[in-house]
């Protein structure tokens, strides 16, 4: 038994309709007989049968539109099985379209366009968070300049006005800032000039106010020594890591200290990208952001700090790390000094300084004893916050510092632990 299908008369013929049957069930026909006329978009075309045989059954009435390849009649070849060999059979049974074999790459040579529903590619709309967390300034920079800046480890963002068209930063700007001997100290060291540009702008534009709170760290130090006792030096945690973690977790609840002040408006940042000031061995500093610090435990914070120091000193910091800190922490290390009154890195709105750990006389219940303390200072932008909330932030840090065991684990989701 063979099926006769709606024939294709041209590449652009997708559908056809039996306008008129010339035969009925039971009729015997000869090869080449016209058994129907097919209505196409170009008009009527005769449809011939390609073998001698008998029409078994008409499967579709006149006037019904079908797509090419749909069955329209059943046909029994004259001498079943006719002399045609497999080739004939191969062709006559349900004809699949001109498909390449499976292993062949899909080269669809049938020109009948597949109008199968095109998968609608849903372009994920990036939720532009209303709180500002992206590029600090929209300055233009040429690709060559950007490439050179990366090579020289210069944060081109610190260059306020390039000599290119409408202030675009070009190669000359980068080379000018790097024109001095790179490793020679001195005021025209490009790093120095870049830092000079930032700190002078911050000092002039940002109305700083300063607060300080001395925090007892004996508890934390004791917990640390017990924690590190059995660990190889590689996994030991330093006190700083605990302090950074406390600061990051506290800042989560004080958005007015974590974000950017731009064009007269403050935008709080979505998460805490804690800027870690790293002093480079040959002088100068780089600020590397620890992303989403509010969700890190102190173990992870320690790993991040070590990793960033190593990469900073080997020039391996990524551009993104050097650009998107939302608040900064500065510390001068064990041999630093008691307190640091820092300058805010514009366009951020706060900077926290960590003095060196030191032992001082300390009054407890009117008895004088000794205690190991660290002075934590806050310099903040008075346009955005006031001393009252600054003090509450410092106290929150102190309170978290007294319970180091709570800071150990990585918080899976900072949202559900909104403090205060």
């Amino acid at each position, binding site marked *: 038994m063979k099926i006769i299908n709606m024939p294709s008369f041209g590449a652009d013929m997708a559908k056809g309709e039996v306008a008129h049957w010339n035969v009925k069930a039971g009729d015997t026909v000869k090869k080449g007989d016209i058994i129907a006329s097919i209505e196409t978009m170009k008009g009527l075309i005769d449809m011939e049968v390609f073998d001698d045989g008998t029409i078994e059954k008409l499967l579709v009435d006149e006037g019904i539109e079908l797509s090419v390849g749909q069955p329209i009649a059943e046909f029994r070849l004259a001498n079943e099985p006719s002399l045609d060999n497999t080739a004939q059979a191969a062709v006559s049974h349900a004809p699949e379209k001109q498909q390449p074999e499976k292993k062949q790459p899909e080269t669809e040579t049938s020109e009948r366009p597949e109008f199968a529903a095109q998968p609608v590619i849903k372009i994920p709309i990036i939720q532009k968070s209303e709180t500002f967390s992206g590029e600090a300034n929209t300055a233009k920079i*040429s*690709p*060559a*300049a950007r*490439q050179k800046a990366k090579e020289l480890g210069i944060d081109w963002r610190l260059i306020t006005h390039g000599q*290119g*068209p409408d202030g675009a930063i*070009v*190669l000359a700007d980068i080379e000018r800032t790097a024109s001095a001997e790179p490793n020679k100290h001195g005021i025209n060291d490009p790093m120095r000039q870049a830092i000079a540009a930032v700190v002078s702008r911050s000092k002039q534009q940002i109305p700083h106010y300063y607060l300080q709170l001395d925090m007892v760290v004996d508890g934390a130090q004791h917990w640390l020594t017990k924690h590190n006792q059995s660990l190889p030096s590689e996994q030991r945690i330093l006190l700083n890591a605990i302090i950074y973690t406390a600061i990051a977790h506290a800042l989560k609840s004080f958005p007015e200290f974590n974000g950017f002040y731009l064009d007269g408006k403050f935008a709080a940042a979505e998460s805490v990208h804690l800027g870690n000031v790293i002093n480079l061995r040959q002088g100068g500093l780089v600020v590397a952001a620890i992303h989403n610090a509010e969700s890190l435990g102190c173990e992870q914070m320690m790993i991040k700090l070590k990793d960033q120091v190593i990469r900073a000193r080997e020039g391996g910091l990524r551009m993104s790390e050097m650009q998107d800190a939302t608040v900064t922490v500065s510390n001068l290390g064990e041999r630093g000094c008691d307190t640091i009154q820092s300058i805010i890195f514009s366009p951020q709105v706060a900077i926290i300084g960590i003095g060196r750990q030191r032992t001082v006389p300390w009054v407890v219940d009117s008895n004088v004893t000794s205690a190991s303390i660290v002075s934590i200072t806050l310099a903040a932008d008075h346009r955005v916050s006031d001393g009252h909330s600054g003090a509450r932030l410092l106290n929150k840090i102190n309170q978290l510092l007294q319970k180091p065991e709570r800071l150990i684990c990585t918080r899976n989701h900072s949202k559900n632990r909104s403090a205060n």
Partner: protein
Amino acid sequence: MNTDIQNNDNKTTETLTYREAMRLAIQESMVADERVFLVGEDVGNYGGCYAVSKGLSEQFGPQRIIDAPLSEAGFVGAGVGAAIGGMRPIVEVMTVNFSLLALDQIVNNAATLRHMSGGQLSIPLVIRMATGAGKQLAAQHSHSFENWYAHVPGIKVLAPATVADARYMLSMALADPDPVVIFEHVMLYNNSEPMPTTDDCADMHKAQVRKTGSQISLITYGGSLGKTLEAAAILEQQGICAEVIDLRCLRPLDTATVFASVNKTKRVLVVDEGWRTGSLAGEICALVAEHCFWSLDAPPKRQCSIEVPIPYPRHLEQAVLPKVEQIVESAMELVTNGQAMS
């Protein structure tokens, strides 16, 4: 102008014109290989519309220097057929303007048959055409369509700009088993240079650095080379060191030389007598943007003809075509980012 070339080979002369160089090239190739013949309008008795084939008919006879009737499709198609048939024809289409009548034979037969026949047919054919404006021949006789031909896979496109290239590129094209189209800018025929030798002409696929420089790459071809070198000289006096790249081969493009230059100078200006839209200059700027993006210190720029039919009056024709002053100004703007030079 030294017009007649003695036909003996031991002739030495101090200088050679572009036209004489091409004539020598044809003469030399026909002596070397009897499969080579020249067919085209007025190439025989008349000696060639631009006098390139002057005297060749007397030397080789009308069977090998064949005057063709005004049947561009006919004799260009015949050239394709003869090439398939085992000859090495040089078909001279008087100018690119007339080649429009033979585009079907060039694109659908010459460029396509090798690939479409599954590699069975080879078409070792050379088609030479004059091109470009500057002789006040008005719109229909002043076209620059190198970009049309350089768009077609299956043919190669050459633009000899110097007398040395005119002298030695033809033999390379004839040796190539695939169809090669050679554009000869009408303003070059009278150029005269010292007698070139084979090592004054690099491989036909290679671009050439005609002047080294460090601050900007001026990329050009054919008839625009002269004005680009002139502009580079003026820039030099104004303290700007420009590099000049002569493409020589428009398909396939020698992108290695172009990229090396742009990556060095960080800036690129393409000088192209074609109309800007869909021009070869556009193609080069796209390639530079794709492959040299990270070394660009200024946007790639083009200096092309104004998009109008080339007008007949001289002052208007000159206004349309890229000018030396414009090249200098554009280059200056790219190098100094628009500020006055300190």
